[in-house]
């Protein structure tokens, strides 16, 4: 099966950050940082809305990635996909009420043989997310491993 044509595939989507989703997310992680959950505390800092934790980026990038996962070529690889590496560079903080626009593009796709001789495929996806003021909130690199049979 040739998937050489997946490099350059690009998808985009919007995500609106809600305070309720932030609270749900940090509750699962057991994260009690008041910057995420205490509306009055955050208002007293700068008058704004509560912050999203850095790895909430996984959520606001998700709709764009989902479009990629549904792609007819890429979707064939998903069952054997595991997450290998993840990198984030943060800009403006993401906050409740923000409307985040994310583009996700496949930038690398190559084979790699591991120590036991299995051939895995490596796929790199880069995302860029901006907020409603066109400020860069986050860029990310997802390095995914498609495990060999």
């Amino acid at each position, binding site marked *: 099966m040739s998937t050489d044509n997946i490099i350059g595939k690009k998808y985009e989507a919007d995500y609106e950050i809600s305070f309720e989703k932030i609270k*749900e997310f940090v509750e699962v992680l057991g994260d009690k940082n008041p910057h995420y959950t205490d509306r009055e505390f955050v208002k007293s800092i700068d008058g704004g809305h509560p912050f*999203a934790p*850095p790895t909430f980026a996984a959520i606001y990038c998700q709709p764009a990635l989902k479009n990629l996962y549904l792609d007819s070529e890429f979707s064939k690889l*998903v069952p054997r996909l595991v997450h290998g590496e*993840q990198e984030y560079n*943060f800009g403006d903080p993401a906050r409740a009420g923000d409307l985040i626009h994310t583009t996700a593009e496949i930038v690398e796709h190559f084979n790699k043989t591991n120590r036991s001789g299995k051939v895995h495929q490596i796929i790199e996806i880069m995302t860029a997310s901006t907020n409603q003021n066109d400020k860069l909130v986050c860029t990310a690199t997802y390095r995914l491993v498609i495990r060999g049979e």
Partner: protein
Amino acid sequence: MAIKDKSKIRIGKYMPYFYAGASLDYNLIHIDREFAKANGLPDIILQGMCTMGLTAKHIIENDHPSKMQTFKVRFLNPVLPGDELNFKSEKNDAEINVEVTNQNGNRVLRGQATVR
């Protein structure tokens, strides 16, 4: 240099399901045991992003989240429900190196963050 070596977290049986709901990551290797095993995994595995989120919590604690400027990790071994994770980090100026190991002493994540 400051070393932080105190947080230990047990990954509950239902954690992959809770994290799937909270994060929208419904990849079947995290929620369907038969599917995970049929695709060569020992069991359902925890979302790597969940381990990364727990590691970010270990680094930021109750500080302002904007303190974290960059954060990159490598996922070294799968995390399974029931695992007990140990978080250990070492801070040198603005750079933090972090490592997460399981109850068997195997490293599951290694990462670097820059903070302000």
